[in-house]
């Protein structure tokens, strides 16, 4: 779906370069790298918020950006008096008219997604009343409602407990397969990623390279060696 050939990522300086990365529909990708290695910058570039430092990402589509890309941030704190349903329903905004009126198809679409994610009991509650994990699932539901081919999540499980980390990564993997969309998320939870994603993208901040590895060809040691090449403590 998206092919990235010979592109350099960075805002004012070269963070890392990509020789060849290919993102396909129906797969869940994990982006792994040190703090400050440029994970967020890469995701923002992919989300067309910023331009690549050099080169161009090939993704020729005619439709509007809001119907192609959904973006989920690492934390949503909830908003006073905003119900979970209304929050999720905002995901339909790219398809509503100028007044933002939801049609019955939109409501059906939203209810269908909420059924799948098993969050019907949250819908009438305010987003400030539910837990961090529930809020994160609501954010993912909103992104799915946007019905895009690409969903980008910036450290979606960083602030969650172990159970929720696994649950949400599992949901992402299922959604990618069921809805045949491409989901990419950055993460520091290498073990969870190794269990559930289809492919891992690793940023090597010493050699300034981003490499792509199908899950079959990689294990934890390899990931650590690429992501943290100079760190001796790993060999203890």
């Amino acid at each position, binding site marked *: 779906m998206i092919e990235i050939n010979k592109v350099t990522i960075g805002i004012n300086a070269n963070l890392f370069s990509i020789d060849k990365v290919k993102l396909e529909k129906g797969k869940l990708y994990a982006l792994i790298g040190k703090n400050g290695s440029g994970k967020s910058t890469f995701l923002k570039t992919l*989300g067309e918020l910023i331009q690549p430092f050099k080169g161009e990402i090939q993704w020729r589509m005619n439709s*509007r*950006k*809001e119907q192609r*890309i*959904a*973006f989920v*941030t690492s934390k*949503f*704190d909830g*908003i*006073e*008096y*905003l*119900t979970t349903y*209304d*929050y999720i329903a*905002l*995901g339909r*905004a*790219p398809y*509503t008219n*100028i*007044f*933002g009126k939801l049609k019955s198809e939109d409501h059906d679409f939203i209810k269908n997604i909420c059924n799948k994610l098993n969050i019907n009991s949250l819908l009438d509650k305010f987003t400030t009343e539910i837990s961090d994990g529930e809020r994160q699932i609501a954010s993912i539901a909103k992104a799915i409602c*946007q019905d895009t081919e690409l969903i980008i999540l910036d450290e979606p499980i960083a602030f969650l407990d172990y159970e929720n980390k696994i649950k949400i990564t599992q949901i992402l993997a299922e959604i990618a397969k069921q809805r045949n969309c491409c989901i990419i998320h950055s993460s520091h939870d290498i073990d969870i990623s190794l269990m559930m994603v289809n492919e891992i993208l690793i940023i090597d901040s010493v050699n300034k390279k981003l490499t792509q590895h199908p899950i079959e060809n990689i294990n934890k040691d390899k990931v650590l060696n690429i992501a943290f090449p100079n760190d001796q403590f790993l060999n203890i």
Partner: protein
Amino acid sequence: MRKQYSLLISLLIIVLVLLTFLHLNGGFNSWILMNLTEFNTNSTESIILKEIHLPRTIMVLIAGSALSIAGLLMQTYFNNPLAGPSILGISSGSNLFVAITLMSSGIFSSNLSIISAAILGAIFFSFIILGFSLKVKSTTSLLIVGVMLSAFTSSIVQLIQADSTLDALRSFTIWNFGSVQQVQLDQIPMILFFFFIGFFSLIFLIKPLNLLVIGENQAEFLGLQPRKIRWILILITSIFTGLVTAFCGPISFVGLAVPNLVKLIFKTTNHKTLIIGTLIVGSLFLLICDLITYSLEDLISIPLNSITSLFGAPIIIWIIIRRKWND
């Protein structure tokens, strides 16, 4: 849910209509409406009603709505429940520009030149605040910038005052009192014209405002065009703020307090409900404030501005206390 809203809104409208008649009557102490047996244009009662009470009532209704809507738009845009036209210094921009206009042409300034100056001043100061908001991320710091802007502006106004003619000074002082009394009947069409321009543009702002609730960055991913919306919002808040400031002088706290009250009453972030609620409660709030000045009129003459502050300031402090403050 929806049925509750319409019930609440109808109830508020009934109260608004009743108080509007009471206000038209001139408060509790007057019997104008009772004595008006026939609609004879020459009777004293109908002249008082038409020339004095009617413009004042219309102005109060419009000023309350306009200031409150300006506050609501700012609170949503800046994602800050304490934003408002007066605290962010937008009103002081209008104030400065009107001062310059009045001082330079004195009593000869036309209505249109005053209202244009007020709106231009509001637009100009909105851009200043917007510029600061890009640098200052903390919501409370932005408010301090607004307060400083007002302080800075008021000293400039004083400097202009020091160097102006007696006539100009007099017309400015009367205007600066912040009252709805001096509005004339022939000014009403222009006031209504500007109000309805802003009012009709609101219909097209419901969707963008609902998106802005989750923040500009997230809204952009859902199709919001931030630059376009920023321009429209500045224009509309400036029209609303400028309109009121031009004809009533500075009236503070209404734009800040009313949207917070409305959110508390309706408990929603849907701007369709919030806008309708703010229009009604805004009028209601200022109507009650002005009814108080009416009933105290025989004893003392107090500017409307001090009544709104008397109610508005405690409401704001209460809102600050009950919020979980996270910055």
